């Protein structure tokens, strides 16, 4: 699971009102080498909840020097965009789980794939 995806996910456990962002508990993390595409990063930044991205990167020990606040005029800042690219797309959780911040319910991640299914009694 990549952090771009994580940034868009929220807990849907019944009754939960503050299900975003999900906490990440990772037992295996991989960092891939992915072709840097500044245009895509620029398009994704406005969709992000920035602090959730920083928090997630931090939880994985891969924050590096991602700033706490989104930079102004990031479009021309290639160095910054590369950091965002790395956090969003290159860091991947292979094994672990996502945890609902309110209910504590855990969604397992196995082979890089989260399982978001709820059981019948939670639905």
């Amino acid at each position, binding site marked *: 699971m990549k952090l771009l995806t994580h940034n*868009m996910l929220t807990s*849907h456990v019944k009754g939960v009102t503050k299900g975003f962002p999900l906490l990440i508990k990772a037992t295996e993390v991989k960092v891939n080498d992915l072709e840097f595409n500044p245009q895509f990063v620029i398009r994704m930044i406005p969709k992000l909840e920035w602090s959730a991205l920083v928090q997630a990167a931090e939880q994985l020990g891969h924050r590096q020097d991602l700033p706490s606040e989104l930079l102004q005029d990031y479009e021309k800042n290639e160095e910054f965009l590369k950091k965002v690219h790395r956090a969003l797309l290159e860091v991947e959780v292979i094994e672990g789980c996502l945890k609902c911040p309110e209910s504590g319910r855990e969604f397992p991640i196995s082979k890089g794939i989260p399982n978001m*299914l709820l059981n*019948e009694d939670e639905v």
Partner: protein
Amino acid sequence: MGTSKRGSCLKYIFHLAQDNLDFRLPEIKALLALRGKPFCPGENFKEKSPFWCLDGLSEEDVSGIMARSICAKSAFELWGHGKTHSELRTSLLNYPLKDMLLFMHKDSTYRINVYTFNKTLEFSDRIKKIDAMDYLPFEGTVSLKSPQHIFCLMEDYGNDPNNIPEHPDYIYFGRWLADGQRELIRSHSVKNRHFIGNTSMDAGLSFIMANHAKVKENDLVFDPFVGTGSLLVACSHFGAYVCGTDIDYNTIHGKGRSSRVKQKWRGPDENIRANLRQYGTEKMYLDVMVSDASKPVWRDASLFDAIITDPPYGIRESTRRTGSHKDNNKPPDGIYAESHVPVSQSYHLSDIFTDLLNFSARHLPIGGRLVYWLPIYRPEYCEEIVPFHPCLRLISNSEQPLSSHMSRRLITMEKIKEPEELDSLAHLSNSHFSPYQGHNAFREKYFSGQNKRFGKEDDKSDVNGE
């Protein structure tokens, strides 16, 4: 590029393949819209004809369209046309000479092709037709193998294979500009794909769907019923980043029984990511997840540029969602059954589409598109049965017949406004809702006595790629 003496815009002629007829116009319109250009057909435009003359375009527009189109075989700069060869000649002699000479000077090489639609001509007749065009000021040399410029004489002998006229109904002559992407049908054929399932979308249609959805480079595309990822493969080819979900754990993980006749179990390299890797687009792979499309896990924002999907019809795969039954046994605490859906309710077809449209209204930007297949019982079809949503405008509805009683329709919708609180219930007050309820009986109708030979669900099917 000059303008003709007649003072009208430079025209182009597209030669389209005669299959998926219903899908062609929406595809070309979508590709034009991607370039901000309107659809301006010439006079006498006939949608069913393989030849379309379009106005108001530049050569870059034509290249752009042909770099994406599955429906169009080739595109030409139109030099002349007419009902007879005499009219064609007049038309050609009216084409600005200086524009012709660019491609005909003595150091150039060229070839003239003759293409006849709905008629087969002897080789000698083709040569005669080429020779009859000696009034054109070609000064270059003919090269059959690698000409710099290719020209095409196109003759349209009508649409009736049982009544082929002696002389063509219409004739065109043009300079070849580009071919379409029909090669993708072969290169991305499901037959050769690493990871497939019973319902993997055939390559041609998946690229057409990506075009209907106006997918473009650096888009983020989502498929909520992703299956084996055929639609993601197509979208990634056009430069979009892709993600998907499916309720079926085994399909998402690439486990379980193979859909190939001679293979029992799936191999280790069979999953959606491997499919993108096979075609060189792994870098566009974002994520796939096991998830129930009726219970979305996404935060409330316009996250996806396009949503493209083939929801289950309940025929070759089941329609399921998580939920409780009255006589259900509770699972042991703390153990979440990971390898299968805890309890499956049947997911009524009409609910699938209601949920899909609501989801799209929430998570697309204004102008973003939803493209999905709607299974249809033909004897009872009417336009009102197409699901409605106040935030989504219907763009196109293309039918693919499957049998005398069944077809599926590719529906394209575009978001026109943000949803308000009550919009998600709009379908209940709408008269559109009642006809669609009958759709839940789609599965019954499919399996009814009239369709006995389709009645059995196949566990393994011989993959019907092309």
